[in-house]
Structures are given as structure tokens and as C-alpha cells.
């Protein structure tokens, strides 16, 4: 691709905004009534995380592994990649993240952090992903049918993952490597999603951007603490 410097992000946006948001509408229709089942399941997991972080962390990683696999295959590959050929590779990144999270779930040394601020940040991100992300249709004037639901849509699934990853700390090198990989894949998606939404002219791009920035900032701060 010569004269690459002359290309703008909009040159790579090959679909209209209405086409993008219709993806979620069609996906929710196809998976109905899953959007209503995933919310209570997610809230249950959140409550369990607060009461019994150790086992809930591993169970949460396992559940998120399934969520990433489902979102990656059924949404990113089957729907998003139909209008954006780059997402054919994006789907494989979701599958890779599913493998990483499944690996984390199996690690006996995966523990919950004890830092209260980091825990609160994690809970806020998970709460946002479960409860508030779907409500973004309201300020942006979209129909309810286009709500982005955790476990079905990429952004809330990724943001909830960031929330869970904030709770996780490690003892071994291998677990740390898995955590780092999970962080990297989640943050890359936040950047991609933000860039896509901004290029579409949607201020909603600030959501994945701020979620990723906040999570990364909290993690960095936690690692600096003695």
C-alpha cells in the first residue's frame, strides 16, 4: 500500500453506521432471550466475586473464556467480518483470548488482589458492562433492539473482562504471562473499538477508550504499590 501516509482511518471504514448497529440488533434477535438471561448471570457472578473472590475469580475467568469464544465466533466472525474483512482476523484474536482466559481459570495460583481501590475499579467496570453499556442506546438515540449486551457483544464483554482482570493477581511467571496476554488482547480491542466508533463519528468511542485507560491506569498503580 503505497502512499500509506495519505490514508485516514475513514478510508478503512467500509460500512455505514446504521449497518454496524444493525449487527447488534440482528445478533440479539438471533440469540433471544439470551440478552435477558446473561444480565442476571453476570450480576450473580459479580456478587459471588465480592463474597468469595478466590473461586469466583477462576469461575469468572472460565465463564469469560466461553463468552469471548461465543462473541468471537458468533458475532465477530459470523456478522462483523461480513462487513469488515479485517474482523476475520479479529475473530481469531477473540478465540486466542478465550484460550488465555481458560488457561488462567486453570491456574491454582490465581488469586484476588487485596487492594481496595483496584477492587472497586474492577467492580465498577463490571457493573458498567452489565448494566450501563446496554443503556447507551438511550443517549445515542438507537432502538432497544440494538443494545450491546455482555456475553453477546464485544465491548461489554471486553470491559467486564478488564474488570475481572483488575481483581486478579499472580504468583508464578506463567500465570503472570497469561494475565499480561489477557490484558493486552483486551486493551487492543478497546483501542480498535474506540477508533472504529470515532471514525463513524460516534462519541461512544470514548467508552471503550476510557474503560481501557482507567483499567490500565489502575493496574499500573496497583503494580507500583509496595
Amino acid at each position: 500500500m503505497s502512499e500509506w501516509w495519505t490514508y485516514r482511518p475513514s478510508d478503512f471504514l467500509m460500512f455505514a453506521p446504521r449497518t454496524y448497529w444493525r449487527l447488534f440488533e440482528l445478533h440479539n434477535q438471533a440469540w433471544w432471550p439470551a440478552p435477558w438471561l446473561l444480565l442476571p448471570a453476570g450480576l450473580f457472578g459479580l456478587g459471588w466475586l465480592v463474597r468469595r473472590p478466590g473461586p469466583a475469580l477462576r469461575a469468572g475467568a472460565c465463564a469469560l473464556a466461553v463468552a469471548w469464544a461465543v462473541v468471537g465466533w458468533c458475532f465477530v466472525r459470523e456478522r462483523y467480518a461480513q462487513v469488515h474483512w479485517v474482523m476475520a482476523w479479529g475473530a481469531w484474536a477473540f478465540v486466542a483470548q478465550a484460550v488465555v482466559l481458560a488457561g488462567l481459570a486453570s491456574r491454582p495460583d490465581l488469586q484476588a488482589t487485596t487492594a481496595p481501590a483496584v477492587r472497586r475499579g474492577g467492580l465498577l467496570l463490571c457493573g458498567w458492562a452489565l448494566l450501563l453499556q446496554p443503556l447507551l442506546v438511550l443517549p445515542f438515540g438507537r432502538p432497544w433492539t440494538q443494545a450491546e449486551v455482555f456475553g453477546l457483544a464485544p465491548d461489554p464483554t471486553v470491559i467486564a473482562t478488564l474488570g475481572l482482570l483488575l481483581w486478579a493477581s499472580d504468583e508464578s511467571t506463567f500465570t503472570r504471562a497469561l494475565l499480561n496476554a489477557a490484558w493486552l488482547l483486551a486493551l487492543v480491542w478497546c483501542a480498535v473499538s474506540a477508533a472504529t466508533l470515532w471514525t463513524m463519528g460516534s462519541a461512544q468511542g470514548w467508552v471503550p477508550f476510557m474503560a481501557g485507560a482507567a483499567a490500565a491506569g489502575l493496574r499500573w498503580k496497583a503494580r507500583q504499590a509496595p
Partner: protein
Amino acid sequence: MVDRRTFSKPDRFDRRRWLAACAAALVATRSAQAAPGDAGGPLTRPIPSSGEALPVVGLGTWITFNVGNDAAARASSAEVVRAFFASGGRLIDSSPMYGSSQPTIGHALAQLKHPASLFSAEKVWVGDVASGAAQIEASRAFWGVPRFDLMQVHNLLAWQEHLPRLQEMKAAGRLRYVGITTSEGRRHAELERVMRTQRIDFVQVSYNLLDREIEQRLLPLAQERGIAVIVNRPFREGALLAALQRHRLPGWAAEMGCDGWAQVALKFVVSHPAVTCAIPATSQVAHLRQNMGAARGRMPDAGLRERIAAEVAAL
């Protein structure tokens, strides 16, 4: 390495092409000022290499037809194509780069039982020339056509390898015209070199009320070499119209029979004598009809074109 048997040497005198170019220029000059086609259909321009008439407004499919598996959106696209043919349109342009636009076109054409007036314009977009034939065949399968009328090298990608292959396909009757494309003002120097040294039937470039660079060299060169010109981005992908909509339509617009800025913008483009066809993209039947309306009625002459461009630039 380009096979030099398949194209003319630079500036070599070719009587057939010269006569075709003169005829095309004469017809284009006359039709630029006439108001033909109101009763019988849209204004047409001849393809210089063959004389075949093409309506000056075609249909682009970048973004607008990339709707994935959305059955409702595909049905809407089919209605746009139906209205396109009903308005006398012929040329539909697409590319493998445009996501699911090709299957959407194929769906629409199947719904309409493959109108005979279709002029199919596609692109080969792969760096590996060995994969070009397979890509073209995949595109053909999506469209559901026996062959493409026009195959273009998309954005000059590997043109040195693709053009000879396309010329071979043309000689074998597997397509009718060969072309090359660029957009947004990129690589015009290289495109000019291709136009001077290669035997091509079409070139596709960006041109609109604000992006007029090609008037200096490429459009005159196209006329000189007898190359048809397809214009993409006549509305700058909607940005031009979005900016113009804030302003009242000037009086001269009504004189040209324009009912909106879209028709003004299109008439400006297609009234250039070197332009064969503009390909605005739309997903709405109402906009499609407006666009096709630009191919009818009075076209601005050179003086009015300059006035329009100056006034728009000043807005």
C-alpha cells in the same frame, strides 16, 4: 515485466483510436451543451474505444451496499437497483474490497432477473497476480453474470502484472473492457504514466466540485488517448453535500433543472466533456432518483461550470 505486445508504444499514431477519440470528443462536446435524453432516457456518452453509449450517471456500491447478512438491508438495496434500472441506469461498479457489496449486488440482480442493460464494472484487488483470476471468478459468481463488461485494476495494485492478464481475458472474450482506478487524488503521476503507456479502455478517478486536480492533466489525457473516465467520490462520500446543504440553492440551479445540491454536484461532474460516467453511491431510492435526475435536462457549459465551481468554493 509488462508484455509490450499487448499495448501501444507511447504516442504511437493509431488511426482507429484517433478517429474514435475525435468522434467521442465531437459527441461529448455536443451532448455537454444539449439537453438530450429527457424523452428517451438519460444523457449518454460513448465509450471512446467502442462507441458504446453509457448513461452519464451510474451506481457506486462502496459502503452503501456492504450490508452483510441483513435480509432487510439487502431487500432495500435491491429496490435501489430496481429504481436505478427504471431510471435508465446501466453501470454498476463494485470491488472485492467493498465487503459484502458484491453478494448484495448479486442478490439484487437475481431479484430483477438480470436486466440486459446492465454494464458490470468490477475490480481486481490482489497483490498476488496468480490469485487475480480466482478473485475475478469469485466476483463473477457473486454477481451471477456470465462475464464482466469492465474489469479494473483497483487502486493501481500490481497493475504491471494485472493489466496484461486482463488484456488476455479481453482478447479471449471473457470481458469487454479493461481499466484501472485510483481515488482521492492518490498516485496521479503513476496513473498518468499508465494512461500514456498502456492500452486501457477506462480510468476511474475522484472528481467533484472541490477536487478538480484531474482537470489539469488526466482528463485532457483521457480525451487525447481515447480513454473513458469513470468518476468516483462525486460527493466526497457525502461530505460535500453535507457542507452544501446549509446553503440555499443559487438561481442558476433551477435554470439547469436541478432540484438540489446533489444534482448540481453531479451535473458539474458529468458536464465535463471527458467524463463518461459518475458513480455516486446511495442506499436510498429517493436519493437514487435524484442522482439519476442529474443525467437529464440542461447541462452547464464551460462558463457556467466555472461559475458554479467558483461560487461553491466561496461558500
